[in-house]
């Protein structure tokens, strides 16, 4: 090779050339100047009823009727043909065999396909719906997100004539819920309480329910390294509020939040809890965790689905305050981005069907649905064989072991219970700041 060509360019020459190339790129600033400041355009005009909705979110004593921005689809809208119905749900929170296979079979004449996508956190999921990254026909938020989803015009109003199963099968509580009066946008999916699950082969019932304040078991150093709590700022700070006798679990009072925060920091020192969303149904099922904050459906799921074969049925315990504890429900809604609104209505009605709803609960996710046909007494028989893994009766109905009797959700609990609901941004900030401190492990 000619020596001249072999001459290496110096580093300085290279950088000079490179800098020139970079400057030649279209000026980013000029492009960006064209945009207005994000967030400066308020989505809500002041003084409107919508602004009022955000400032005074739905509560049991403040029921809200969500505004309609468009009319529901007509009842005679044809069922979409050759469509792919897109379901967007929490991970493993719906039975694919039912929601996909059985639904496809039912609508085989229309050549319908069902596509289930899981999400692992609700806010990123909402962001994906908003940006259009995910176009879902059916989505599963809870009442604390519903108002904002409606105000942001992300949801279609429901055509109630297409969903007769709600009136036919569900508790009166959900025929006109306080968070969505006249159920304009949502139908209920699953219900749950938040209590304390424990392994009765390590803790007897008295060691939890027998205490003056049963929540304190999570603070008891005896169980250090065996305690789990949810990695969920609303549930966990909410539980600490209830432990301290503060029943407004949507409070914006800094002192109350501070009390809960200090208490939870004390818990981290005392019992070094395992802070995960899957503590109960995975780690307790494997006898790795012995006592922890638990949704009723999670401990049932641990019993039904996740425990290793041979686990006796009498190891499962669940405590829930009889005078009122944390209680909630999830929803099914129809996002606007979905392409198959009629089929989405059919899906909602399908999941509210008595048999389907029961199968989803008893054979898969362990989360009860608020159906009138589920008899709480029949769920927990007086005696259950201890040696078999999962107990179903001759008719195939799920049976809870005695230790899980308090995991059954009954309508009266909603009257006495406390539900995590929408908060004002200022209150939310206090909660997340407290949670940041708890999670930092200081």
């Amino acid at each position, binding site marked *: 090779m000619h020596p001249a060509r072999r001459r290496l360019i110096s580093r300085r*020459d290279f950088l000079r050339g490179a800098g020139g190339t970079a400057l030649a790129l279209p000026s980013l600033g000029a492009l960006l100047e064209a945009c207005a400041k*994000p967030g400066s355009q308020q989505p809500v005009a002041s003084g409107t009823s919508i602004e009022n909705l955000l400032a005074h979110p739905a509560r049991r004593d403040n029921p809200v009727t969500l505004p309609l921005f468009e009319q529901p689809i007509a009842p005679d809208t044809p069922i979409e043909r050759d469509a792919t119905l897109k379901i967007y749900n929490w991970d493993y929170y719906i039975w694919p065999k039912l929601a996909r296979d059985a639904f496809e079979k039912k609508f085989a004449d229309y050549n319908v396909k069902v596509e289930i996508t899981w999400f692992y*956190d609700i806010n990123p999921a909402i962001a994906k719906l908003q940006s259009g990254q995910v176009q879902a026909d059916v989505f599963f938020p809870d009442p604390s997100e519903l108002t904002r989803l409606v105000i942001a015009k992300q949801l279609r109003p429901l055509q109630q004539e297409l969903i007769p199963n709600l009136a036919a099968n569900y508790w009166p509580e959900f025929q006109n819920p306080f968070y969505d009066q006249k159920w304009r946008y949502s139908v209920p999916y699953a219900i749950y309480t938040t209590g304390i699950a424990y392994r009765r082969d390590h803790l007897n019932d008295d060691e939890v329910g027998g205490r003056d304040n049963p929540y304190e078991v999570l603070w008891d150093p005896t169980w250090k390294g065996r305690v789990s709590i949810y990695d969920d700022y609303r549930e966990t700070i909410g539980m600490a509020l209830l432990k301290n006798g503060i029943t407004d679990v949507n409070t914006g009072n800094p002192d109350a939040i501070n009390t809960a925060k200090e208490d939870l920091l004390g818990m981290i020192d005392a019992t070094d809890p395992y802070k995960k969303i899957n503590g109960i149904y995975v780690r307790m099922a494997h006898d*790795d965790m012995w006592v922890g904050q638990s949704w009723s459906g999670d401990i049932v799921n641990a019993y039904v689905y996740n425990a290793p074969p041979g686990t006796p049925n009498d190891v499962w315990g669940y405590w829930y305050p009889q005078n009122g504890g944390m209680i909630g429900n999830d929803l099914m809604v129809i996002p606007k981005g979905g392409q198959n609104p009629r089929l989405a209505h059919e899906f909602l009605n399908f999941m509210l069907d008595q048999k389907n709803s029961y199968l989803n609960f008893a054979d898969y996710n362990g989360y009860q649905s608020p159906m009138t046909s589920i008899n709480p007494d029949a769920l927990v028989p007086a005696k259950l064989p201890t040696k078999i893994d999962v107990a179903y009766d001759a008719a195939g109905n799920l049976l809870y072991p005695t230790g899980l009797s308090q995991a059954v959700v009954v309508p009266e609990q909603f009257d006495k219970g406390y539900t995590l609901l929408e908060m004002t941004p200022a209150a939310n900030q206090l909660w997340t700041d407290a949670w940041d401190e708890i999670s930092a*492990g200081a």
Partner: protein
Amino acid sequence: MRSEVAAPEAAPEPTAERRARGNRESGAWYPRWYWPSFATPAILWLALLFVLPFYVVLAIAFGTVDIFQNPLPVYQPWYWSFATFNQTLTRFVGTNPFYKPALIRTLVYVPAASLSCLVLGYVVAYFVARHGGRLKGLYLVLLISPFFISYLMRIYAWQSLLLTDGVINRFLIKLHLTSAPVNWLSGRPVTVVLGLVYGYIPYMILPLYGQLDRIDQSLLESGRDLGASPARTFLRVTLPLSRQAILAGLVIVSLPMFGDYFTNNLIGGVKTSMYGNLIDNAVASPGGGPQAGSLVLILVVLLLIPLAYYLRSTKRATEAGL
């Protein structure tokens, strides 16, 4: 090898004057932009995959949130708000510095894990390079094979291995090394550090192997001939010659460790939270986007210090012809 490269460069460096006259004098006919233009693909690559994303991080850190508390980036610097950034800083140095323990833990765990990687990795790389013989290829394939499975998956696997009723505990009990099962996953620093070592050690071994394999055998022989013991030869010849690979390996393993969060998420606990967990927690908490962005910026500034040392050391090594 080195002498071949060094010979043509022995000519005096072109002076500034000569450079100013350009390449024409040296017989080349290229225009001035010819060689720099070769940098274009790399510049575009950097601009698209580093500069722009980094600008988005800035826009999020100094931006705002929407009605769902999701981050809303602000791209115009004149609208930027530094309130969240300042608040984040006070969590490290203010009156209630509750982020500080996580930072300190990171500054302990990462060096501990990186040094463990170095010690273990050096032995392995040394063995393969020096004593691998005909099996070298096989050893390398075995070393690279963990890359076929993502780190996340492998840590998930460890999670089930480390359960109290998991394989590790059953093994330890069988060997009578422990009477009761150890609760490895209850937020133990040792589990997290070993998890990091396990996850990142291949990245340490490969550069070390590359360098050790290239060391001229005759240099070692000279050392021995001059009377140095094997240990002394190692300390005076092999180790200095592998210094650049050691530094490169340390940089390659420690930089991602500083941002690692899933190791602690999956096999650690609250009390072993690291810097990466602070970012992860902020991302996960509604309205936490700007704070996560601020944490990223602070980490970038902190990491520039060791990186600057590495670059300086590499530059010196290049100048010294190492």
